[in-house]
């Protein structure tokens, strides 16, 4: 399997086969991650395009070093945060704020719809920081140290945030199960 950095070099030389491989590796993970931030599929897809292009164009990344995934997710996180900030700044109506705060709609009905809905609700109860940590761990498949680098915090902070997020999530699910 070719390394991400090798694919990156090939894409920069116009090799589109390498782009397809890299896209396959990152599209779902990036889109899912960004979607948690922006809550709008179309906007998330636009941001994925921007992130891919920014990463491919930016020559500052040293291709001889590892950590491509970490770099991509850092760029994605910054873009998503900027998007959120701009959207909030441009919002003139309270309604728009309410839309932002609303939990993300789940996908079409499946046999596991109950659990799915429960997880969505439980996730939306978490603070953005805890959601971010949880999703980075799940989709980014990063270690605590890597998430710490992305978020610019200490490794211990990431670990405690993640543990807290998981505990909260499980508690919400358990409470929901008891109430049902």
């Amino acid at each position, binding site marked *: 399997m070719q390394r991400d950095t090798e694919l990156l070099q090939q894409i920069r030389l116009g090799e589109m086969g390498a*782009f397809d491989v890299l896209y396959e590796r990152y599209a779902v993970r990036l889109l899912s991650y960004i979607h948690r931030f922006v809550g709008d599929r179309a906007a998330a897809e636009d941001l994925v395009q921007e992130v891919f*292009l920014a990463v491919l164009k930016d020559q500052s990344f040293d291709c001889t070093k590892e950590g491509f995934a970490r770099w991509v997710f850092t760029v994605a996180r910054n873009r998503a945060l900027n998007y959120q900030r701009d959207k909030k700044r441009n919002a003139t109506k309270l309604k728009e704020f309410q839309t932002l705060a609303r939990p993300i709609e789940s*996908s079409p009905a499946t046999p596991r719809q109950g659990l799915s809905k429960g*997880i969505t609700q439980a996730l939306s109860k978490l603070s953005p920081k805890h959601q971010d940590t949880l999703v980075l761990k799940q989709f980014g498949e990063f270690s605590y140290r890597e998430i710490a680098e992305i978020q610019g915090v200490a490794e211990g902070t990431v670990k405690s945030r993640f543990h807290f997020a998981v505990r909260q*999530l499980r508690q919400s699910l358990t409470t929901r199960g008891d109430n049902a």
Partner: protein
Amino acid sequence: MNCQRCNKNLIDYHYQELDPATYEDMAEHLTGCGDCALEYCRLDVEFRGVIDNTRVRPSDDLHRKLRNRVAAEFAPSWKNKLAQLFTIPIPVYQTALLLVVSLTLAFFLSSERRAPHSVSGDLTAQHASTHAPAVILENYDANRLIIVDNDQL
């Protein structure tokens, strides 16, 4: 390891964030303790649920659009093609060099073998063997070529 400590480490165990020794202890405890194993299974299901529930599949349109933009941005230019030469692995260059050297050698060897036939000294030797006087070719002009009869000589 006791159940309390195992429960505390369960999340880090799932994500392989433990040091090797603790990881081994955890694995051993989970093999022997039914309650902790069940708890671990629950945790695993919940994590899978989070992934399934938050995963968003990109549309085909996204791939097409992005591919077009990348292709437009990084279309191969003469600069890129030149740069590509330097990304070819070293064994390729070695093979190419070997090929060039052997072809050059073969060319020189064959030209050396052909060379003796074109030496003018051979002609002189031919004349000497037939005892015929050598024809003087000074001020030679092909338009006014004189045909010399051997009997006249």
